[in-house]
């Protein structure tokens, strides 16, 4: 070693740095005082490009649980939320769930993992049988495919096929009115992007046979530059564009496409645009883009939903996301079932949740239902609106009819061999 002195100096420097860091960071677990707390585990993504997914998921659930605890909990037993960062790795998510159940004694899991992680969690739940609510994954097979079914697992999130049917019907109507025949798509090149796009276009064509898809672009997930995709779309000269891009990718895409004035030339349908983090990030939000519902204070425009928005903003200082309401919903189902059953026995809780209808700010008619047959959520706001540059960012919201969605979904399941 050439310079021993410097060595120790640096080591001390780094140690001090680590100590400061330790002080800065909040502990992940705020262990509840006393025994008898009901432990709820949440594997999610808290670092990297989509860390907002985890942060707003935790916040959504926390808002509901904290309120429940403040009002006395379950006969004095408080709910304790334990989070684990899976870093978007399915194997870490699976291991985290096993640890939460076997090591930390959680009988309830809120799985806030993106789709591949949610499939991994589902496998664990199948073998260890804790109560699980998938709160983020929209992948249709998770609940629709009987081969994946687990008796204690539910989904309190959107389901891809619901948005596709509602969006397809809306797109078909707009297309008829405006004469939009030539359609292009631009969606991320992975399972979610591909299935969402295929299903959306399938139903758009089903409702309006004049629609034809003239070109499809598939940029990679987290691609920094969309220029080649944008100029490709311009070459097609489509009347309308559908996009399943989301999050930061969607922000980049809009910023870059603005330079080419793409949205002046095409009617754009973007299912994931209407979420606050995207809407507030895009500086020059083009007027008149059409967006699917994610979460919005005015969808549905009820005092309950407005109150949720205000409470969330007051508590966390950030705007709620699509993931926030999905996790808040899961938390509400858990609490309602706990009140019913009186213990956190997973099998009894699952029985109480199956087919249950709860009052909810996010329901189109003020309620949400956990469908008994395939353990997935129905009754939430599905539909499209027109974006505006100012709050509340959304006008002329058209709510899709659940009657129509359920009818076509049943057909679709038959065709897939799921029912």
């Amino acid at each position, binding site marked *: 070693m*050439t*310079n021993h002195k*410097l*060595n120790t100096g*640096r*080591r001390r420097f*780094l*140690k001090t*740095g*680590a100590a400061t*860091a*330790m002080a800065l*960071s*909040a*502990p*992940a*677990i705020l262990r509840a005082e006393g025994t008898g707390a009901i432990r709820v585990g949440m594997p999610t993504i*808290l*670092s990297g490009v989509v860390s907002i997914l985890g942060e707003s998921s935790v916040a959504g659930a926390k808002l509901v649980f904290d309120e429940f605890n403040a009002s006395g909990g379950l006969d004095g037993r408080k709910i304790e939320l334990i*989070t*684990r*960062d899976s*870093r*978007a*790795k*399915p*194997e*870490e998510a*699976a*291991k*985290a769930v*096993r*640890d939460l159940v*076997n*090591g930390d004694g959680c009988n309830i899991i809120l799985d806030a993992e993106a*789709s*591949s992680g949610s*499939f*991994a969690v589902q*496998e*664990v739940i*199948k*073998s260890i049988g804790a109560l699980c609510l998938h709160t983020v994954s929209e*992948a249709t*097979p998770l609940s629709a*495919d009987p*081969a*994946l079914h687990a008796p204690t697992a539910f989904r309190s999130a959107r389901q891809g096929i619901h948005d596709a049917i509602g969006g397809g019907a809306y797109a078909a109507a707009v297309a008829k009115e405006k004469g939009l025949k030539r359609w292009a798509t631009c969606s991320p*090149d*992975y*399972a*979610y992007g*591909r299935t969402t796009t295929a299903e959306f276009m399938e139903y758009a064509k089903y409702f309006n046979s004049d629609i034809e898809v003239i070109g499809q672009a598939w940029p990679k997930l987290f691609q920094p530059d969309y220029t080649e995709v944008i100029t490709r779309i311009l070459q097609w000269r489509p009347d309308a564009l559908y996009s399943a891009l989301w999050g930061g990718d969607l922000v980049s895409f809009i910023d870059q496409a603005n330079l080419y004035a793409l949205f002046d030339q095409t009617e754009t349908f973007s299912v994931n645009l209407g979420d606050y983090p995207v809407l507030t990030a895009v500086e020059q939000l083009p007027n008149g883009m059409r967006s699917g519902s994610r979460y919005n204070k005015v969808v549905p425009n009820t005092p309950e939903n407005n109150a949720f928005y205000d409470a969330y903003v007051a508590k966390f200082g950030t705007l709620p996301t699509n993931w926030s309401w999905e996790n808040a919903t899961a938390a509400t189902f858990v609490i309602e079932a706990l009140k019913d059953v009186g213990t956190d026995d997973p099998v009894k809780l699952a029985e109480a949740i199956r087919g249950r209808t709860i009052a909810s700010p996010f329901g189109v008619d003020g309620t949400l239902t956990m469908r008994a047959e395939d353990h997935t959520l129905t009754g939430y706001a599905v539909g499209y609106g027109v974006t505006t540059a100012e709050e509340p960012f959304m006008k002329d919201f058209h709510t899709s009819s659940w009657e129509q969605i359920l009818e076509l979904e049943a057909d679709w399941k038959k065709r897939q061999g799921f029912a």
Partner: protein
Amino acid sequence: MTRSTTRNALIALAALVVLLALPHLGGGEKLADYIIFAAAWGLLATGLNLLIGYTGLISFGHAMFFASGAYSFGAIMQAQIMPVPLAIVAALIITGAIAALIGAICVRLSEIYFAFLTLAFQMFFHSILLSWVDVTGGDNGLLGGIPTPVFFGVDLNQPEHLYAFCVTVTVLAMYLMHRIVSSPFGFTLRMIRDNERRAIFLGVNVFAVKLTCFVLSAVFSSVGGIILALFISGAYPDFAFWTTSGEAIFMVMLGGLTNFFGPILGALILTGLNDIVVTYTDHYGLFLGGIILLFSLGLRKGVLDFVKPGGRKSTPAQPTADAKEATHADA
């Protein structure tokens, strides 16, 4: 030779007995999970170290073999065409074939170029896993779990059986790798690492030896992938992502690449650290990154690198020359 072989076999057997008993002595399922997880990563790291520590070839692409083991095993079991032991053998053969193909192209290159080419192959492999949806399930991974029918009375759906099976396979693979590095072949590897020219003068077919080592290293790494696939009953594209290779390399460095048991110790330490960091903080990057920086700037050597090689020639040497450091003094 035979005496030490017997001794090593007995040590392996003793290790197996201890490992099998561990969860029953307290710690339960959490400990069992930890050991299985660390074993999977440990095999990846130890397999990788056959190349890094013993042959001096730094592969940035071993995650692809980890994944190919997991995926081929999972896909075969889902197709329900053969029992578990045969499926494992088939997965190893598939991985070996892929490795032979890729290795034949890569091992001709040296140093950083070898590293980059393996990295490029790995990224290509990862993009195939994502896009070949019919076979791999794309980014959703192998959907629907991996069925494991009972064989010879072993039911891998039972946690105790799964644990015993994984531990046995791991100890067996470790034993075989130890046999390999202590064999004349192992000495040839070290000769190539230390002085490739001398090896050529002595008539060693360097290409063939390097390629054989590449394939063996890939096959043993893929055993780790199979164990992980069994443990989580699935296979996912991120098994083949470069960060998986990165973590394996970190394990090798952390435990020490000059000792046969360095990488598996590194796997035990890093897996444990991961658990602790994830359990007690939401700032994974800050803490793990800080630990990595402390380690790489402070210790600069793996834990077992501090253990003096006890005169046994089978110990690999660090590829870093201390002489280089001397020429590059701090200002």
